[in-house]
Structures are given as C-alpha cells and as structure tokens.
C-alpha cells in the first residue's frame, strides 16, 4: 500500500491553470524529486499537499485512507485541516525560522502548543527538549541550542528548519527548493542532511534545481511542465534516457550552467 497517493489534483490562480491534472503515488521510505523550469507548478503542487494552497479538484490518500477530497471540502473546518496537514512536513526555501526564539524554542514551540503542555509539567517539557536535542544532533547543530537564527549561516538555518519539521514526525517530509537561497558552498551541508534522512528511511518529496542531487538521492523523479507531469520514472531513465523533447531541452539547458 502506498504511503501517499495523489489523484487528479487541479489548481488555478484566476484564469491561470497552474496544475492541470496531477496524479502520482509514493511508497514508504521513497524519495521523490520534482524537477522542471520555474512556473511549471512544482512549488504549487507541494503547497497543495501542505494545505497552504487549496486545490479545486483532486484527492489525497495517506496510508490508503482518503485524507481529503478537494472537490467536496467546501466547509471543512480549520481545525480538521490543521490536523490533516500534520501528515506532511514542509521545509521552505527561505527557512522561515522564528527570529525571536532560540534554536531550541524554534523546535519545541509547535509541539508544546500542539500537546498543550503546561509550564508546570517539567517532565513533559524535558521530554520535548530531549527530542529536540536529538534532532539537532542529527543535523549536527547541538552546539547551537541557545543561539538565535540571526547568528547562524544560511546552511545552518536550513538544517534547523529541517530538524523543526521533523519534530512533529510527519509521514512525508517535503522540501521546497531547500538550497535555492543558499550560497553554493553552503548547499553541501543541507544536501548531506537530506541524504542521511533518506538512509534513515524518511519518505520525502523534494522540489529542487540540483540535478545531480536529484539523480543521486531519488528513487523516483517527476519532470513537470506547464502544470502537467511530462515524464515520471527512475532517476536513471529520466536523466540518462529522457523521452520527451521538453525534458531533453530542460536537461541540456540546466547542464549548460
């Protein structure tokens, strides 16, 4: 049974059809990379999965159960959307850490609010802090627990953002161009963390412009163009043996620079 199944997702902004009819599925522990030129709809697709945009049509299944049918969600309460989106985690291009909180608090805030932890419940707070410390260790930033986001480099901030997304143990972790806002020398550390997550069997969807990374880390690659899946397959097929002309053009243009 697939951990995630997407059926016929459609989304427009005004008259602009951004997603025309997107369907795919993902197995547990698989890594899916989505590539394509800007404006092809890949970020919008990720945002629909995380309920930051509301698709007009389509269904999302998680673990075989229907999570949402966009066509009939007219009066869905915020509260139920809030619970449903926790199946997904999202790491943003621009990190979006909370600047006024320490790194530790950035990780623990959402969990404390979600579990309604009282200030007096020292044990619970300690457990959440320990979990955060574990995750910070995994991304190699345990010495930054008490630092503030502005004191960290972009690469470090993005690693904190990854740890923060993992705090809620999402079933599927999504990345929206995680290295696009980083200086070239800082992308390596972030990609290394993602690679380690894959080795730890985390199910991930990565929208990326790093073709080599997509090739090496993914189990499956989707090439999107004009709101449609133009080509989908194993990385070897997509990168070594592209079928459509658009994919060939796209790959040759990305290889040029």
């Amino acid at each position, binding site marked *: 049974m697939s951990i995630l199944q997407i059926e016929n997702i459609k989304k427009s902004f005004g008259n602009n059809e951004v997603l025309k009819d997107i369907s795919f599925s993902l197995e547990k522990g698989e890594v899916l990379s989505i590539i394509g030129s800007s404006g092809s709809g890949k970020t919008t697709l990720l945002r629909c999965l995380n*309920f930051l945009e509301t698709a007009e049509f389509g269904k999302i299944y998680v673990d075989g159960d229907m999570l949402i049918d966009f066509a009939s969600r007219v009066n869905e309460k915020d509260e139920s959307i*809030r619970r449903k*989106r926790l199946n997904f985690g999202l790491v943003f291009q*621009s990190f979006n850490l*909370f600047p006024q909180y320490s790194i530790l608090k950035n990780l623990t805030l*959402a969990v404390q*609010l979600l579990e309604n932890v009282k200030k007096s419940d020292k044990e619970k707070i300690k457990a959440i802090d320990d979990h955060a410390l574990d995750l910070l260790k995994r991304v190699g930033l345990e010495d930054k627990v008490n630092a*503030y986001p*502005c004191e960290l480099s972009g690469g470090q901030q993005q690693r904190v953002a990854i740890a923060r997304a993992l705090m*809620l143990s999402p079933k599927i972790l999504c990345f929206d161009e995680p290295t696009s806002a980083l200086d070239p020398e800082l992308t390596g550390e972030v990609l290394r963390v993602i690679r380690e997550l894959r080795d730890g069997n985390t199910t991930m969807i990565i929208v990326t412009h790093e073709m080599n990374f997509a090739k090496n880390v993914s189990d499956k690659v989707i090439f999107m163009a004009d709101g449609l899946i133009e080509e989908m397959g194993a990385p070897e097929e997509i990168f070594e043996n592209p079928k459509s002309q658009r994919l060939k053009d796209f790959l040759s243009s990305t290889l040029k620079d």
Partner: protein
Amino acid sequence: MSFVNISLDLLQSFAENCELFALTLLFSLPLGLIISMGSMSKIKIIKYITKSFVWVIRGTPLMLQLFVVFYVPGLVFGIPMKSRMTAALIAFVINYAAYFSEIYRGGIESIPKGQYEAGQVLGMTKSQIFFKVVLMQVVKRIIPPMSNEIITLVKDTSLARVIAISEILMTATEYTSDGLIWPLFYTAIYFLAFCGGLTLLFNFIEKKFDYYRS
C-alpha cells in the same frame, strides 16, 4: 508669588496633563489594535467602514474633535457632558487609537508571509500564530513609530485647555494677567523632563529587543 509657589502650582496643573496622557494610552493602545484588525479585515464592509473612520479622525483637527465630544451630546441629544476630563479623554482616545491602528497595521503587514506559513505547517492555530509568532516581531518593529506618536501625545494634552481643563499651559497663561510672562515659557521644562524620561524608557525597551534581528 514666589518661584517655588509658581513651580508647585504649575506642577499641579501638569498632573492633569499626565492623567490625560496615561489614561489615553491605557485605552487607545488596545483600541488601536482592534481598529487595525478592522482595517485589515477580509470582510469588505468592515474594512471600508474602519478605513473611513480612520480617515475622518486623522483628517480633522484634534481641537475640533474636543469641541465635538464636549458640546455635541448637550446640543444634539440634550445630555450635556458632565466631566470635562471625560470629554477630553474620549476625544484623545479615539484620535490616538486611529493613529496607533495605522502603526499596528504597518507592523503586522510587514511580517513576511513565510512566518505565518511556517506556523501553519507546524499545525498552529491562527491565534497561536498571531500571539506566539507574529506579535513579538510586530512589537519590535513598531517601537520607533510608537515612541514618536506617544511623545507627540505628551504635548497634545495641552490642547485640552480649549474645553477649559486647567492643564499646565492654561495655568501659565493665567499668570500673564498678573504681568508675569516667564511662567509660560517655564512650562517647557516640565514637558522636556517628561519627554526625556519617556525617551530613556523607549531606548531601554528597544535595547531589550536588540538580542535578535529579523
């Protein structure tokens, strides 16, 4: 009249200015936040009513608003304002809340969308996002324009004399009929001292928020 007597007399009147200042802040700071919510509302009718209200309040002199609040209830509804101080307070609170609302709006709208989205994908509710994520960042950003407005308020309290509140300038001008002009100029010291204290306080608060950059 000795210098000391006059100083004490002016100080007593200045207490009226301080009272008006403190009460105006107490009520207009929260009211301004509510008005700013109105002017950012997605419901068009609420948004336009609020925006028109802010336009009227900011577009007419505070002195005129003092007259309106003081005289209109008696003239139009036959219920005269009993307390001059209450009338002044109502006019000041409404006027300053309108200005504060625009400062709040500017602060809230300057917070990047990504902060809200980060809160959303972490499963926070709208109010948790506002109070736990956004509000503190707004406060940091609005301290400088707020300090400006609050310091203006200190001096605006003197306008209350137009409805015969015996604030410090009113008292000082009364000395001119005794041939004393210096108490009028001397009042500047009171304002300077008060605003000096406020400036120190705002610097302190600004420092408190210096530990992070956004």
